[in-house]
């Protein structure tokens, strides 16, 4: 048999990229950095005095930090082929549960545990319903969006719960080498997220499950377990975000995290992660969060009302998805 079969394969061979480097999304992230620079210029032009102020930067970074942590979890879920609409509600529920009188009596560590445990457990419920109950993630987390916030209202009786534990209150004001604690938390969470996504079996299998669940199953991957863990991870991220929002506001409230699902999904999509699953980058998500937060900040500085801000955010997300669909069609040929 002649071994030198030189084939005339029609479709292929030209677009040979290196996928895990692709995964860093070099060109796309450069684009995001360009957008970020443009946003800074826009901010400087529209409000020259206030935008470039150091305090304003701190405000941007701190609000980016909270939504950023949620977005890291959301990135895993979306790459894994799902969506989590309940993130804002989980943040609210965890913030309330962790600031009840009973929780506060346990002191700083008891509170921290409560935030993380409530977030993780709620995410686990999502995961079990979706993976083993076979409910579409869109529906399951939509139901959780309503019920988690309802439970938060029930527990808090609609009241804002003030944090009395002084060690907790000081979280917000502390810094590490001049970087505010909250921002440090985002950096740590995003770095761990990047690492897990790109350097571990868990991350690799997340891409596989989102890209082709059947192939993943035949390769011996426990797709259900992976799906369940992804939503649990998102819940954990919400628990961490709850700590951050409570530290910032020194309150727990069932109104915390309102529309976080929109902000997080928006940031993830702007960051280049495909809503169809199987594609996405953590670096893109962080840049997406920054772009989104800077734009929001510019709207605020220019006295846009909340209604107008929300309209603008919606438009930005739609534009990002449109742009993403165009570039993806261009880049991988046969794959629609």
């Amino acid at each position: 048999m002649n071994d030198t079969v030189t084939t005339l394969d029609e479709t292929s061979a030209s677009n040979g990229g290196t996928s895990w480097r692709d995964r860093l999304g070099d060109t796309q992230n450069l684009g995001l950095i360009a957008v970020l620079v443009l946003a800074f210029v826009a901010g400087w032009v529209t409000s020259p005095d206030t935008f470039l102020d150091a305090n304003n930067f701190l405000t941007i970074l701190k609000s980016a930090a909270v939504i950023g942590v949620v977005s890291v979890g959301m990135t895993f879920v979306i790459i894994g082929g799902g969506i989590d609409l309940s993130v804002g509600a989980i943040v609210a529920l965890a913030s309330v549960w962790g600031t009840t009188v009973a929780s506060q009596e346990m002191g700083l560590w008891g509170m921290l545990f409560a935030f993380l445990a409530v977030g993780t457990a709620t995410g686990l419920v999502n995961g079990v319903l979706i993976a083993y109950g076979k409910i579409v993630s869109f529906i399951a987390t939509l139901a959780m969006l309503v019920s988690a916030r309802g439970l938060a209202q029930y527990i808090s009786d609609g009241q804002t719960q003030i944090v009395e534990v002084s060690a907790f209150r000081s979280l917000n004001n502390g810094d590490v080498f001049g970087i505010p604690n909250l921002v440090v938390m985002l950096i740590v969470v995003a770095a761990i997220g990047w690492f897990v996504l790109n350097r571990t079996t868990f991350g690799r299998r997340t891409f596989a499950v989102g890209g082709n669940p059947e192939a993943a199953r035949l390769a011996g991957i426990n797709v259900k377990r992976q799906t369940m863990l992804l939503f649990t991870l998102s819940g954990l991220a919400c628990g961490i975000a709850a700590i951050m929002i409570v530290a910032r506001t020194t309150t727990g409230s069932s109104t915390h995290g309102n529309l976080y699902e929109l902000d997080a999904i928006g940031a993830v999509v702007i960051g280049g992660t495909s809503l169809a699953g199987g594609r996405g980058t953590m670096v893109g998500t962080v840049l997406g969060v920054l772009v989104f937060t800077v734009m929001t900040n510019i709207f605020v500085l220019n006295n846009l009302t909340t209604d107008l801000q929300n309209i603008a955010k919606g438009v930005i997300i739609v534009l990002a998805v449109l742009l993403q669909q165009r570039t993806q069609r261009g880049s991988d040929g046969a794959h629609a």
Partner: protein
Amino acid sequence: MTTTESPILELRGVSKRFGAVQALQGVDLALRPGEVVALVGDNGAGKSTLIKGIAGIHPFDEGETSFDGRPVAIHGPHDAADLGIEIVYQDLALADNLDVVENMYLGRERTNRFGLLSEEAMERDAADTMSGLAVTTLSSVRQKVAGLSGGQRQTVAVGKAVMWNSRVVILDEPTAALGVAQTRQVLDLVNRLGNQGLAVLLVSHNLHDVFEVADRIVVLRLGQLVGDLDASQVNQQQVVEAITAGTLTSVPGMATHATGPGAKRGDDAAEPSADAAESGGAAASTDPTGPTDTDGDRADGETTP
């Protein structure tokens, strides 16, 4: 053609029933190292059931399985993989969004002692496997599978199967969706697998492909083994006859009703029982139009010797 060696995988009298349908009945099969065995049969003959049984996806109800002469029980895909049995599925089971290396290691990623992915080692070994199979059609093992042609995808799927020190490779219709040049490429690959001492079971509808690579041809009909033929001793016509009218040892659908001439059951009454199976079998499992389709397919195969 090394039929003297003792088999790696041997099935004796395996049966499988799905509800009222007897999908496999008392099938014997032996796969020897270095031998390419083709498994042929009409739609519904039980080919898929047989390989799914071997793969542990739908374990057999009855019968014995032995590996290297030792009796084994294959209850799930992991049992099969642990023994060194790998299946290349018809739909290829590749993730388009991952590259060649990532697909080849999917589900069995290699990690270092800190639990992190060993990308370089995986890339090197994947490339080695591909060059060991004399695959020259991939420009890079870091290509995304989405950008590969059908033949290249099949090559990746085969590479994935043989990378695990596998002893038995089962290919399910590997050329079904391929053009001429790519079919050539895959058949050469199948030959090389045999030359490397693996036991290869090739499931195919295309008798031309089968005669090109197979040492032995095993024919299933209505869930029963109706032929175990030496490929060099038979021609396509004989195989087609076995596929469409091979002698059945028992007649499905008739055994339970115990009516009609087929109920006599027995090897001496070959012709009547085969006829009865045509009608009884159609009621039990197969598409009634099957035999005519088959003739059409085979005619295709014969025009290209």
